[in-house]
């Protein structure tokens, strides 16, 4: 039954679930108890996640990669539904470990930021914990059924949280749109996943069907997916199904043109949910696209990423331009997320070590940064009751810490050196400039013209536009004249808010001045992928 079990990852997953169950059993008057339990469980998860992060052995990972093995740390492997080839298999590789930490950070700070929720506190905390648990599950999954299970599991708490506690004006529309969009993307990817499962299982010849990543990866290395998909087409499985899987999961990553759910979803959601949403949920999509798409179908990646990169470019530039036009504070951040997630997808599409490492760093950096942004927006909105940028102004006088936090976040989003944004974006651009490890399999004749460099230049425009809208928002919201009549009583932020902001700023600064804490880890996860691509 049990193959290996270290318990840590299952623990990180179960603690929020248990917390949610306990909270639901409380009587509804006991709001403080609900909050405390939520904080304690996410705190425990955070400590365990820190343990996983700092306990990850980069050298072991690199050694395993040299041997061509797939390396996962802290594995939990228990048989679940044997007859179908599904097992409870959790593990983290170099890319997943920072993501687990990110989720834990966003979860813990989210609970702190939500301390003030009074309406049905119990249900809010319970659903929030379930959402966090679902997201943990995706990052930790080594069995792809488990990945898909938790991917879907995150959907319904999201719907609840937005529709009940969200912004009254658009919450129903946004929640339904978000849910349906994500579901569409995920089920398209499901069909692709099933195709891989059957092809791999059939190729074993022993009827050994399995959803386990190692089994599918072995099949990929053996070239199973490079065979023609069916009798009626000569196109290989990898090339035929890669777009479905990558873009199916990419919907959640906000890949243009399927990004539409994201800004509305961000804005309609309550603050903590926006933090998880933009900070973590969108990374799920990129992560799953990488894990199931690029890692298992490298030939498909080689064939399709060269044109998918244009979609990501549109994300970066278009997202930034739209952000500049927004009047609503939160919509600016929402579109900024679309833009920065474009950089993540772009980094993965570079298909070399530097670019992909940058993408992994960007996932973490942007995750923390956007959580910080939404926290700040939430604090301003709770006090000003408006998000209209022209009406706001001078909030640095009343909320100095929030202003500082927002400015830090702004610098990160601009890629200012000294903060994590630079550490993340610079490698992506370097990677773009160098181009893919292997000549892109041309879907149109591009004999010697490596257009990746041109993409780098255009994408760099995105930075300029980002700087423009960030500085504009900072200037208009935090500096300038403060309207005393309109905002008579702006309360100070609570100690919980301060702790949350502090934690988030700490990680942005740490990664900025000491990237070595994370970059080698991500690199160790990326190298095996690139060697399969370059192979």
């Amino acid at each position: 039954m049990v193959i290996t079990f270290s318990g840590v990852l299952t623990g990180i997953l179960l603690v929020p679930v248990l917390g949610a169950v306990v909270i639901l059993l409380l009587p509804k008057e006991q709001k403080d108890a609900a909050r405390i339990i939520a904080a304690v469980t996410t705190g425990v998860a955070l400590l365990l996640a820190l343990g996983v992060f700092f306990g990850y052995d980069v050298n072991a990972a690199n050694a395993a990669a040299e041997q061509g093995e797939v390396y996962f740390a802290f594995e939990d492997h228990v048989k679940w539904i044997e007859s179908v080839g599904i097992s409870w298999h959790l593990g983290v590789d170099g890319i997943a470990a920072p993501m687990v930490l990110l989720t834990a950070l966003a979860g813990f700070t989210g609970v702190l930021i939500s301390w003030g929720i009074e309406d049905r506190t119990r249900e809010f905390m319970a659903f929030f914990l379930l959402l966090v648990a679902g997201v943990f599950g995706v990052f930790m999954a080594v069995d792809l059924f488990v990945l898909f299970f938790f991917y879907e599991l995150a959907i319904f708490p999201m719907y609840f949280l937005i529709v009940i506690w969200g912004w009254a004006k658009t919450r129903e529309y946004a929640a339904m749109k978000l849910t349906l969009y994500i579901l569409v993307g995920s089920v398209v990817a499901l069909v692709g996943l099933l195709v891989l499962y059957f092809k791999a299982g059939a190729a074993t010849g022993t009827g050994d069907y399995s959803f386990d990543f190692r089994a599918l990866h072995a099949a990929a290395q053996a070239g199973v997916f490079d065979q023609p998909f069916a009798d009626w087409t000569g196109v290989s499985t990898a090339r035929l199904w890669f777009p479905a899987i990558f873009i199916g999961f990419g919907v959640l990553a906000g890949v243009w043109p399927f990004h539409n759910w994201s800004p509305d979803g961000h804005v309609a959601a309550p603050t903590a949910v926006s933090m998880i949403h933009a900070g973590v949920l969108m990374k799920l999509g990129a992560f799953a696209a990488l894990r199931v798409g690029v890692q298992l179908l490298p030939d498909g990646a080689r064939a399709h990423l060269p044109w998918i990169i244009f979609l990501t470019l549109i994300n970066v530039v278009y997202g930034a331009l739209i952000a500049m036009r927004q009047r609503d504070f939160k919509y600016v951040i929402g579109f900024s997320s679309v833009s920065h997630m474009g950089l993540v997808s772009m980094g993965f599409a570079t298909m070399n070590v530097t670019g992909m490492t940058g993408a992994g760093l960007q996932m973490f950096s942007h995750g923390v940064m956007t959580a910080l942004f939404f926290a700040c927006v939430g604090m301003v909105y709770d006090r000003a009751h408006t998000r209209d940028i022209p009406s706001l102004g001078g909030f640095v006088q009343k909320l100095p810490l929030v202003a500082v936090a927002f400015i830090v976040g702004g610098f990160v989003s601009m890629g200012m050196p000294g903060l994590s944004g630079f550490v993340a974006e610079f490698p992506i651009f370097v990677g773009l400039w160098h181009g893919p490890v292997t000549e892109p399999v041309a879907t149109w004749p591009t004999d010697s013209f490596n257009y990746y460099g041109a993409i780098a230049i255009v994408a760099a425009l995105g930075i300029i536009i980002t700087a423009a809208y960030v500085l504009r928002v900072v200037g208009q919201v935090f500096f300038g004249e403060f309207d005393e009549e309109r905002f008579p009583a702006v309360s100070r932020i609570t100690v919980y808010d301060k702790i949350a902001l502090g934690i988030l700023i700490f990680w942005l600064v740490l990664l900025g001045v000491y990237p070595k804490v994370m970059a080698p880890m991500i690199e160790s996860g990326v190298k095996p992928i690139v060697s399969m691509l370059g192979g």
Partner: protein
Amino acid sequence: MTILAVALLALDVVWPDARKRDLGYVAGVGLLAVIGVMLVLAPPPGEVSDQLLLGGMIRHDQLAQIFRAMVILGGALSCLVTMGVPRLQHRGDFYAVLIVAVVGASLMSAAADLIMAFIALEMTSITLYLLVGYLRGDVRSSEAGLKYFLFGAFTSALTLYGLSLLYGFTGETNIYRLGGVLGRSDLPDGAVAVSLALVAVGFAFKISAVPFHFWTPDVYEGAPTPITTLLSTASKAGSVALLMRFFLAVFPPAGLLGALEGVKDYSALWVQLVAVLSVVSMTLGNVLALVQTNIKRLLAYSTIAHAGYILIGVAAISTDKSAEGAAAVTFYMFMYVLTNALAFGVVILFANATGSEQIADFAGLSRRSPWLALAMTLALLSLAGIPPAAGFVGKFLLFRAAVDANMVWLALVGIINVIIGLYYYLIVVKVMYMERGPEDGRPVRVDTPYVWALGIAAAGVLLFGTIMVSPLVDWATEAARALYILL
């Protein structure tokens, strides 16, 4: 079970009025006990020849076992949820006839003979006509009963004709021998196709597949809700079992009949037919459900859509004996029985509390009864196919079977329908949770039988979707393999 039914009638006469409500307990618990007895004391024999009982009328194999368990469970849960309905709770004859309907459905699960198939079909149908129209004073109930009767009588006449054609062509009534003779006979394709189509009419009627679904919304809405529960659980489960067994036995794929020469493979006929029915049912059911305002009608259209999903699994019954399609169908039906019992049970409670079956009147119920709202949400998530409810695993298995049988297009259609379905299920959830009702704070009354019934159902839906998936999948696979053992 017959003894139980008779005992109920006797008790109905003997017990004073005040105690009569407890008849529900007798019925419900009695049925659950029957399941226990069946599983422990009467496992199916290993040898195929020992499995045919009653002169070859029924076949007592694992498939019959699991479907009987489902059917009786559906019946038990329906009895328990009757106990809160004012005009039905103390009627002993109601419980007795309900049990007879359950007997009919369980005979359907095991029927191995044309005559038994028809008897079982009729036994279930006629008792259900009665039960649907039970509330004579209620216009909707009488109308529903009459509609169901007329529709059912018509389709069963067509089915009987189809069955008699099959007998006429082959001279056999045992479906396994019939299949063998039919495969080796030299009949024109048209004749076989016609008899297949006629028999299919009856099956499509019982499982509410398009185009024989017209009775479903009106009957589900008009019938007393416990009977709606029974219809959507026990009756449907029995029919699905009979459908699978019948098609595989009478029109088997050539690979299963042994390597004899000249064995004609008629399976393509029904596989294509089932696939088409599946697509149409799913799409029509889901699309029409989008505009419903009455919860029972919405669940009725959802039933039609689910008939479509189930037929995906039937169409994907592969010929390589890996039994994935049939196993998926079996698993799905089991979780469907539990899910529907849960959903309709909550509907009964809410209807008693608000006096209405309109979805809009469910507003604010999450504030009045958070646990009931959560139970309903779990049921709706299961119907939609979202984890952690068992419906997710069920749908996953169905799509997996479809992809394996090289019917990827069918899986894609199914997936599109899942998305449409999610929309209207979420709307109900949204109404319960988001909107405020007129009587916030006053809890909905939940009597003990409901705690049991909904508790069992909810536990099942949650457990079979997470921790206990494996035992059920294994049982379903074993049952499905039994389908492939032909004589």
